[in-house]
């Protein structure tokens, strides 16, 4: 009896040891939004097919950056897979395993870079080395309140006053006039600015500047240079200042959460503004939004000298120090596969995979997909280099002073140029 029990116990232990020797465990660090959450729900499928256990740790984007910076070194890493947002790829480039060295998958075939949305592909690249697979198609998409622009009374009033049809704003001029119309008549706020974190404020600034025909920083002659055209930059800032005037109260501190509250939860709401597609799921969720199903999506309106949709995507990478590159690669191949991408699209998220985004089967029920495709045509990226953290702080500080009238826009633009130059100089560019 006793012998029998110990034999049984031994067998069990051996089986457990065998199983654990077989099962690989990988640790994954991702940002926290509906997209990785949707992925997490599908994990059992992957774990069953590969016998790889996946521990996903999700944190807010700044914390992902902090933890990656601390935990990934040339010789050690706590994570086998890390999500790196596009602006920080340069910082980590030397620590990441180049894509062409990723092992072949045993269950899932290696991701074909061609399947990745072309405009997104280069965000996973640094110094022309592909380091990771861009995983989400996150770039500015424009939202306009369909119920407002289709309202016959408003349409008639607007046409009578401005002489053209109310609709999705296609240019900055239309955006300003339509926004002013709704704001003046107390129907809705005209615009929803973003004045939250520095990375997002830099996006807004670059959006305005590109639309007015000037780049901010360029990589030319082997070095980074401020190429901002003062007159055009001031013009862009002045325009944003006008948009601020038709924005809801509290616009000067509006971050994502406040924008969502203003656009989707305020009975009056906001007429038109940009959105990161990663957040669309929340705006289309009736539990969080009064305007679910009432939003028209488009590419951002065009400025006087250009049109731009700012990108803000994540690349999925494998640290060189990972002890499980096989399992890590397998996980990424699964994630970027068509089958998973299709399911992610159906969960209202936006994988960076062209065929899923343009699949006609989804387009009818996901009106933002065509808008996303239109935005891709005018995609523009923020400058990327290691010191971007300091630069975006400078931009945020003076940009907000400029658009709120705390400082003349001319002085604000000059201060941005001056202090950015200081940072670049100190960094040795």
């Amino acid at each position, binding site marked *: 009896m006793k012998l029998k029990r110990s034999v049984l116990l031994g067998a069990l232990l051996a089986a457990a040891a065998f199983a654990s020797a077989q099962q690989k465990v990988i640790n994954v660090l991702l940002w926290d939004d509906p997209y990785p959450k949707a992925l997490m729900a599908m994990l059992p499928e992957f774990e069953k097919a590969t016998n790889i256990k996946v521990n996903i*740790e999700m*944190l807010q*984007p700044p*914390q992902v950056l902090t*933890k990656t910076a601390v935990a990934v070194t040339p010789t050690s890493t706590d994570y086998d897979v890390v999500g790196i947002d596009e602006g920080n790829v340069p910082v980590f480039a030397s620590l990441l395993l180049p894509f062409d060295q990723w092992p072949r998958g045993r269950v899932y075939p290696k991701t074909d870079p061609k399947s990745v949305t072309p405009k997104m592909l280069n965000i996973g690249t640094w110094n022309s080395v592909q380091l990771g697979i861009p995983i989400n198609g996150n770039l500015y998409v424009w939202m306009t309140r369909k119920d407002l622009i289709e309202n016959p009374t408003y349409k008639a009033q607007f046409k009578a006053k401005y002489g053209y049809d109310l609709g999705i704003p296609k240019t900055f001029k239309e955006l300003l006039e339509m926004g002013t119309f709704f704001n003046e008549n107390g129907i809705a706020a005209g615009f929803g600015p973003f004045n939250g974190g520095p990375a997002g404020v830099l996006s807004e600034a670059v959006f305005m500047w590109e639309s007015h025909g000037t780049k901010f920083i360029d990589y030319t002659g082997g070095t980074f240079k401020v190429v901002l055209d003062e007159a055009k930059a001031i013009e862009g800032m002045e325009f944003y200042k006008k948009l601020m005037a038709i924005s809801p109260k509290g616009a000067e501190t509006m971050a994502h959460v406040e924008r*969502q509250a203003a656009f989707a*939860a305020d009975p009056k709401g906001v007429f038109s503004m940009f959105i990161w597609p990663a957040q669309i799921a929340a705006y289309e969720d009736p*539990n*969080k939004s009064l305007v679910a199903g009432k939003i028209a999506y488009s590419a951002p309106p065009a400025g006087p000298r250009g049109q731009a949709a700012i990108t803000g995507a994540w690349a999925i990478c494998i640290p060189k120090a990972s002890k499980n590159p096989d399992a890590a690669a397998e996980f990424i191949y699964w994630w970027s596969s068509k089958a998973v991408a299709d399911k992610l699209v159906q969960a209202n998220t936006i994988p960076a995979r062209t065929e899923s985004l343009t699949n006609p089967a989804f387009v009818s029920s996901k009106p933002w997909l065509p808008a996303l495709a239109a935005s891709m045509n005018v995609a523009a990226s923020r400058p990327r280099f290691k010191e971007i953290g300091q630069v975006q702080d400078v931009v945020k500080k003076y940009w907000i002073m400029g658009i709120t009238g705390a400082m003349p826009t001319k002085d604000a633009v000059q201060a941005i140029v001056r202090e950015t130059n200081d940072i670049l100089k100190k960094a040795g560019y």
Partner: protein
Amino acid sequence: MRLATRKKIITAAVAVFALAVLAVELYPIAITLLNGFRRDIVILSGQKLSLKQFTGASYALVFENRQLMQAMRNSVVVGLLSTALSVGVGAMAAYGLTRFKFRGKNALAYSFLVFRMLPQMSLVVSLYLMFRTVGIRDTIFGITLAHSSFNVPYVIWMLIPFFTVVDKSYEEAAMVDGCSRWGMFRLIFLPLAAPGLVVAAVFAFINSWNEFLYALILTGVNARTAPVAISSLIGGDTLTWGQMCAASTVMLIPVFVFTIGMQKFLIRGVAAGGVKG
């Protein structure tokens, strides 16, 4: 008689005052508590409170969230362990500092204090490197130790005034009786400083319970504590307001119970009565 009436009036006035203070102090917490029972859209659209809005959906989501629940359990465990460790060790040190004469004791006491002043962010990187080398990163033990690092000095300084006021005649009597130093500490000082120990325990627990940065950097999926888990509900990008409120309300319950329990020891007389004989 007149004294009794006066006392009654004073007590009534104090009760009114206490209620007023409570109203102000609890207002934001009451909002949080109520919003845990309302849908995000109701909260954000600023609708007036009504019974019809009430739903347990956010709480259900919080309780279903396995990672969050594990983080709360971790928080309780780390909080209790770190409190026990730092109050035990800190009380001994406070005793050592106040009831002995030795050179450099002021310097030692101040160094405990001064080192506690450094912001965590300047220590966390080296702690991380150290923990990884030793192999206690992302373990309950590691984060307990990290929390004790700021709790021990805290407890020491919180207890110093409680130990200094104990009259020397006790010690002298005990010494005559042949009581050891350890015996004095246990039989005289711990009971006499009970209110201090209670307060120190409560605040050591809070410090650990609320701590964010060490938990963020030094833990991962295994030993993550609740503040880190809840911060993802606050969300940089999208809002899960109801869940955040529900989770923070749930977070308040254990500490509230802990405090009420601890207060039993805070009533006048218990401390002094403990050393009868």
